[in-house]
Each structure stands twice: as structure tokens, then as C-alpha cells.
């Protein structure tokens, strides 16, 4: 078995570039000029008596069409529904979030650019997304993806039946990273965030410590193009969640697996330390990348309910039999 130092003692060597604030101010100012033009399309065969299911579309960075599954209870209370943004993992497609709608949330499972439902205009593939133009912050894949998460927060907050004063965000891995990114870039909207095993934290050290994909994409890229290492780390500093974490003001619940071979727990600790608002952390010694999700589920549900105050709906009607 591999032997490592206590991950809680880890200190990252990643620092904020001098023009970090300017870069994001400029990026979001340009993004704000794009008309999101959100549209909801009902999906009747995935809807039930309790939950209405829609496909949501909106425009994001460079006009890329972004989609997601939007579910809300069919009977919305007069005071509106809390919104819950669910950003996706790196290789997974978003699931239809009916379970969250049944708990009383207006839930948006986002397909960021490059996902199947949002890949018509931008689709670097897998492997490939993590290293797409990694030598240039202006065109790096995650610039658009972070804007997708930023834009999704205000699209969700602006939907009918959603109470824009109660918007949370939750996800694991890349979804955990994008949860923190949304909270950092939309502090005026996001009221709480859950991040499980967040990805995209402390890029250089994650590449050193992780033994698997997706970080292995960068290992493989740099083995083939070692001359671009300085440029790659210069770019990723602008997108490193550890550098964005200080802008998070909402309460955050984070959980980590201490035997996570995909997103090293060291980098989760470093990001947790950098968060700018109220925060709590749970770690699981024998958990991997799932970060103890089975054991954390009641805690996550309670945390979101405490901050977002959902109103649960009645059980679903029975489905026809096979």
C-alpha cells in the first residue's frame, strides 16, 4: 500500500496571478453581453403526477447552446420554490433530477459544454476536454465551462416559480468544482453550496498526486509536450478552484475521501482552507472518489433543507406494470 503524508497538512504552491481579478471581471463582463434567451421545453413522458420535467436551453460563452434537465414539483407553493443547481461530473451525463423535485426543489441538472446535450458547437471529447487549449487562458476549455455554471445560476434564479433568494448548488468531482465556482462568481445568488471531492483544485499537485484520469490527461499531454508545462500551469492558475475559493461567501459543506485516487484529498483540504465564508468539512478514511456519499446523503439533504427550506410533495403515482 502506498504511504503518504497526512493530507490535512498539505500546502499548495498555486498562487493567484496578479491580474486574476481583472481576468474574471473582463470575462464576466463579456459574458453578460450575451443574451441567455432561456427556453423550457416540457418532456411529458418523463413527467409524473408529482414532478414536471423540462429540457432547459440557454446561450452561454461564445453563444454556445447549453442544455439541462429541469424538474420542479407540479404543485408549486405561492412563495416559490428553492432552486438547486446540479453541475455535472467530468465524464458523466446529468441525470433527470426528479428525486430533488420530489423533495420540493426546482432542480436544474446542467449539461455544460462538451456534454452530449450541449456538444453541438464545442466538443473536445474525452480524453481531451481537460487539456483543450491549456496553453492559453483566453481559449482554455474551462473558461467557457465556468461561464456556463455562472450563467446557469441566474437562469435558474429567473425561472417562473423559483424564489431567487433561495438558490443552492451541489455536486461531486467536477460538479463539486463547478458548485464552488458558481458560488464564487455568483455570490449575490448562491446561498449555500455542497462540494464532494472537488476537482480542478491545485492543478499541478493534483497531477502529481493523482494516479488516474482525468488528471492523467495532463500527465500524458506534458509527456508529449514538455515544453508547454510553464504555459499550462500559467493558464490553470486562472481556473484553479483554490484561487476562486476566497470569493465564496455562501455556507459550504464539503466532504472528501481520504483514499480518493482521482481528486487527491490534499487539494480538497487546501481549497476548504481558502473558502471565504462559513464552512464545514467531513472526511472518510476508507472512501475513494465517492467521498462517503452513501454516509453523507442525510447530512447533505439536511444542509440544503436548512438553507433552502423546500416543501416536499406527495408520493408519485404507481407506474404501469410490465
Amino acid at each position, binding site marked *: *500500500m502506498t504511504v503518504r503524508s497526512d493530507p490535512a497538512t498539505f500546502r499548495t504552491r498555486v498562487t493567484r496571478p496578479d491580474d486574476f481579478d481583472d481576468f474574471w471581471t473582463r470575462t464576466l463582463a463579456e459574458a453578460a453581453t450575451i443574451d441567455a434567451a432561456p427556453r423550457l421545453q416540457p418532456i411529458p*413522458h418523463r413527467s409524473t403526477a408529482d414532478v414536471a420535467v423540462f429540457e432547459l436551453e440557454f446561450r452561454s460563452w461564445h453563444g454556445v447552446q447549453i442544455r439541462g434537465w429541469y424538474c420542479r414539483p407540479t404543485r408549486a407553493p405561492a412563495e416559490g420554490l428553492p432552486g438547486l443547481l446540479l453541475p455535472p461530473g467530468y*465524464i458523466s451525463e446529468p441525470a433527470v433530477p426528479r428525486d430533488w423535485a420530489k423533495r420540493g426543489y426546482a432542480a436544474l441538472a446542467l449539461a455544460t459544454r462538451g456534454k452530449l446535450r450541449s456538444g453541438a458547437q464545442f466538443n473536445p471529447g474525452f480524453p481531451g476536454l481537460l487539456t483543450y487549449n491549456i496553453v492559453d487562458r483566453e481559449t482554455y476549455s474551462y473558461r467557457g465551462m465556468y461561464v456556463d455554471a455562472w450563467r446557469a445560476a441566474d437562469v435558474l434564479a429567473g425561472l417562473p416559480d423559483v424564489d431567487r433568494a433561495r438558490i443552492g448548488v451541489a455536486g461531486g468531482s467536477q460538479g463539486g468544482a463547478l458548485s464552488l465556482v458558481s458560488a464564487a462568481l455568483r455570490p449575490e445568488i448562491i446561498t449555500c453550496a455542497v462540494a464532494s471531492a472537488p476537482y480542478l483544485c491545485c492543478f499541478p499537485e493534483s497531477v502529481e498526486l493523482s*494516479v488516474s484520469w482525468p488528471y492523467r490527461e495532463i500527465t500524458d499531454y506534458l509527456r508529449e509536450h514538455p515544453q508547454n508545462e510553464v504555459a499550462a500551469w500559467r493558464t490553470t492558475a486562472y481556473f484553479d478552484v483554490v484561487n476562486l475559493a476566497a470569493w465564496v461567501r455562501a455556507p459550504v459543506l464539503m466532504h472528501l475521501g481520504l483514499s*480518493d485516487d482521482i481528486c487527491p484529498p490534499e487539494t480538497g483540504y487546501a481549497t476548504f482552507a481558502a473558502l471565504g465564508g462559513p464552512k464545514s468539512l467531513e472526511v472518510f478514511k*476508507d472512501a*475513494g472518489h465517492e467521498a462517503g456519499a452513501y454516509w453523507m446523503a442525510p447530512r447533505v439533504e439536511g444542509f440544503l433543507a436548512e438553507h433552502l427550506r423546500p416543501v416536499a410533495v406527495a408520493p408519485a403515482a404507481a407506474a404501469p*406494470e*410490465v
Partner: protein
Amino acid sequence: MDAALKTYWDDVDAELAATDAAVEIESSRRMSSPAARVSFLRFTGIGHARLTAYLSVPAGDSPFPGLLVTSRYGSVNNPPHPFDQERYVALVLNHRGQRLSDVPWRAAYPGLLVEAIRDPRRYVMRAIAADFLRALDLLVAQPEVDVTRVGMTGGDLALVAAARRPAAVGAVALTEPLLLYRLADAAARTDAYPYEELNDELRADPGAGPAIAGTLRFFDLPALAADVRARVLLPTGDPGSIGGPEWNEPLAEALGGRVQQLALTHLGAKDQDAVDAWLSGQLGAPARPRGWQVVA
């Protein structure tokens, strides 16, 4: 195995036999490392589907055990895990519809589980099972593989492949959820995806139940299990749950002495390492735990 079930799967093999695999192997400079040579494979499956896979071969003197990773229920597969690259000739298939094997047809999520499910010959899982069989045949044909030590990981279709190639497969670790096993029962008990895809299908067409049941009978794992000769590791969830001990009982009973059940702890690294220890032991390879020990 009843005659209709045998005929259904014999027809799949007949289609495979009539289809030239037309294999192309392209070495990947980017993914290869001092530990292993990684290649990208292209080949043809039934229905003229052009498929892809990652193939890794450890550095050093062959033969090595072979490992076929049958794909997860999702659009993207990672190349073989680096720890597997070091120990096995490992093949990860991108089955039809998944990324890199998605021209001209791309799988939908949700949607794949019920794609053409009302017609047993057109049901997508039949063709995907054929993709896995083709991948297994390709793996076993690699000169670096010790054909007496071949294992598989995956879900329902790994077991189907083991049933159809009993002489080729020595060990199967069921590392993915069983989606086709008791699918109608599962969909009646939960609204969680991907099981819920079946309920969505029935909402769209309430009269489709009998046709769907007629298709699913060809994926009856307990019936197919009679032909499995491999040792099987069957992870088991909580009592009373889908995947729990009672849920798995018909399958475990059908596999008889060939199955070993693993009670999941829901701590991913611990469960992963238990699977790895079992599979590596079956295949005569060293265990490579992914967990680590923390020192002060």
C-alpha cells in the same frame, strides 16, 4: 437454458461470425508510458457498427493475464486504470453509441437502456452484448495474453459474455450495477434512473409491457448463469434494497458454487480494494490497492 434463449444468443454469434472485425491498431504515443504500451483499436461489430477500444500491454516479458473492462452505463470510458495497465493486458471497449463509437448512432442518457426494447432482435443491449463478445475475442487473441488467465469486470453483459464464452473467461467481478437483472421488478420499486427509463417508456406507451417483457426474457441472468464456468464476485448491497442479498438470491443460487458475494461497506476505496484483491487473486496478478496509508 431453454431453446428460445439458446437460439437468440446463437444467432448473435452467427452474426458475429459473418462479420469481419477488420481490426486497426494504432499505438498511442500520448497514453503510453514506461509501464505500458497503450493502443487505440478500431473494429467492426454486428450491423456494420465501427467500434473502438483502448488496449494496454504491460512492459516486460509476456504472457500476462487478460482483463476486459465492459463499459459503464454512460457515454465516456476512461482508458485502463494505470494500476491495471501494469498487471494485465487490459481492454476497455467503447460499445456502440458511446463516445468514440458513436458514428452514426449516438446513445442517449437517459434512453439507452430502453432503446428498441420492444423488439428482441433490435434491442440495443443485444448488439452491445455482441460488441463485448467481439472485444473479448480480440483480447484473447492478443499474443501477450495468457489465455488461461482472463477476467472481466462490468455488469449484466459481462455475465452474458462469460456465459457465451465459458472456456475463455476465468473470473468475473460484477463491479457495475446489474440493470437488466430483474429490471421490471426494479422499475416497480424505484423511480431512480436508469431503472426509471423503463417507467418512462411505459408512460409513453402503456400497452408496451408485454412486448418489453418478451425482450427481457432473453437477458434472464439466472437462466444464462447455467453456462457460466468462471468464478464470479457479486457485490451485495443493503438488506431489502435493490442489489441486496435477497435481491441477488436468484442469481447467486443459479451461479451456485462459482459465486462469491462481497458485502459492500459503501466506502469506495475499501470496496474497490476488496474487488481488486479478489480479481487479482483469481488471475494470478499482484493486488494493487488504491487506498494508501497516512504517516505523520
